[in-house]
């Protein structure tokens, strides 16, 4: 199994990944509270970027409404915890089921009735907006006044109830990001990975080669939704407050797709690199401006915009592919 996963992976790439993992593992020992929270954010965006990449990067289905899955996942686990004291790990099952169902509903509507391309993207936005407005009036989860999780000063980490230090959340997120990376690597090399990319490149040709378009695209949407819901659960228990206006907002959907776009759509490493660049640099810039005494609101957004613009203009495939060529890690392409 492991031998199969490693087959054909360049040695240097493996060594670099191991070094990166080691670095991320020891990072909390040196990082203060603020840096640790930046590290958590980077891993969070790397994870959701990877999940989104399955749909868009692999299968070519553009979702602009992934905040739906983050929000549904977050609300399901948080509400079960607040109302019934259920562990988030139990709530997780509900979150995954709910998001898989939501993904399946969107996928069914789109793929059954031939909604494709831009119209598919609009459909995903529409569902996220439904959820935002619906949850604003959903009294059981306190509507627009927000759902809060009880917070205390935790002396010990309670992994079962996800109550504890930022360090615990950091390692949890690291585990999830690493897991998602390995999963996506395995998927890309599997039959369905080939089928997704075939559909992305030409649906007609893919279908003529015997690929069931509906089923194959459904798997991508449901899997991506289920993976994203996991991030939602962590989000809820890390921040301890949920507002429909924030979590379901379209800006959240856009924010989470910037990483893979900047890093390289459809690549494994792209979402990681993109999350590191965007979050790391945006936070770093914020700190720099603070130190210089410049206080301009919205500077982070402007920076995001400029980054995106530069990448689109000069690196249409994202930041990672040219780096991979430089490092000679793209053995498959040559």
């Amino acid at each position, binding site marked *: 199994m492991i031998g199969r996963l490693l087959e054909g992976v360049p040695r240097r790439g493996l060594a670099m990944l191991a070094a990166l993992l080691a670095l991320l593992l020891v990072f909390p020992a040196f990082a203060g509270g603020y840096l640790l929270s930046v590290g958590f954010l980077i891993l969070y965006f790397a994870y959701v970027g990877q999940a989104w990449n399955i749909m868009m990067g692999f299968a070519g289905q553009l979702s602009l409404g992934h905040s739906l899955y983050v929000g549904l996942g977050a609300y399901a686990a948080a509400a079960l915890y607040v109302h019934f004291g259920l562990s988030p790990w139990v709530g997780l099952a509900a979150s995954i089921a709910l998001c898989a169902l939501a993904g399946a509903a969107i996928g069914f509507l789109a793929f059954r009735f031939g909604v494709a391309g831009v119209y598919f993207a609009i459909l995903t936005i529409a569902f996220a907006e439904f959820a935002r407005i619906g949850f604003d009036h959903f009294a059981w989860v306190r509507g627009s006044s927000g759902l809060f999780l009880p917070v205390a000063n935790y002396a010990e980490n309670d992994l079962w109830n996800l109550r504890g230090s930022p360090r615990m959340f950091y390692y949890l997120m690291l585990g999830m990001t690493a897991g998602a990376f390995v999963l996506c690597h395995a998927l890309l090399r599997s*039959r369905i990975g080939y089928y997704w990319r075939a559909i992305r490149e030409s649906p*007609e040709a893919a279908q003529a080669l015997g690929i069931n378009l509906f089923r194959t695209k459904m798997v991508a949407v449901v899997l991506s939704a289920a993976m994203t819901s996991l991030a939602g659960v962590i989000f809820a228990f890390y921040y301890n407050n949920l507002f429909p206006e924030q979590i379901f907002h379209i800006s959240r959907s856009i924010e989470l797709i910037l990483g893979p776009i900047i890093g390289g759509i459809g690549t494994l490493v792209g979402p990681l690199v993109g999350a590191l660049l965007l979050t790391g640099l945006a936070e770093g810039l914020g700190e720099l401006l603070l130190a210089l005494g410049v206080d301009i609101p919205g500077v982070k957004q402007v920076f995001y915009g400029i980054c995106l613009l530069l990448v689109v203009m000069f690196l249409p495939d994202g930041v990672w592919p040219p780096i991979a060529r430089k490092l000679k890690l793209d053995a498959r*392409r040559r």
Partner: protein
Amino acid sequence: MLDVDSLSKSFRGLRAVQGVSFKVPQGAIVGLIGPNGAGKTTCFNLIAGVLAPDAGRIAFGGRPIQGLRPDQVCAAGIGRTFQIVKPFAGLTVLDNVVVGALLRSKDVSAAKKHAAEIMERLGLGAKADMPASSLTLPDRKRLEVARALATRPKLLLLDEVMAGLRPTECDQIIAVFRELNRAEGLTILLIEHVMRAVMALAQKIVVLHHGEVIAQGAPQDVVRDPAVLECYLGEETEV
């Protein structure tokens, strides 16, 4: 093997295919010819499941296949190429063919092996790791054929794969089809304008004009048929 019976299809009143009937016997190579707009590609798309017929039946190996989706038709054992080539441009040439091979072998490494064999056969072996987007048109046509062959079809539908090829390249690919037909009993139905390819390959020719079959039979008889000469080949054509 393939039995097309009174097939009809209209597009908003334009009768693209009208009451077309013909048979493709097992192990045969049959040519489908006719002027532009005669309904040849529509016929292919009806057989391949891209379009559903308004009327008529299509049987493959005795089993009705009209109204099936393209992927179901492919799984039933009919492979096809596209007249306007549709490579998976972002994938390597090998991966293009692997996608086809994965239909019959679920295991990726077995599919890769099978794909490599087919590419060797079509002279694409040296280009395995190139991106499909970098191929020239003749190679893209070969890739269409390789991909379709990788699905291990019993019947192969070829839509103008010789168009744009030089005569020597044409002869190479004709030799490949002959070999596949003889050695593996592959049945072939081909649309083709290159008459030298049709004459070299086909044991039977079906001629379409204005969506109707105006002649069918042995190649040497069909090319002397006055109706065929008038509408398609022209009086002076030497074959």
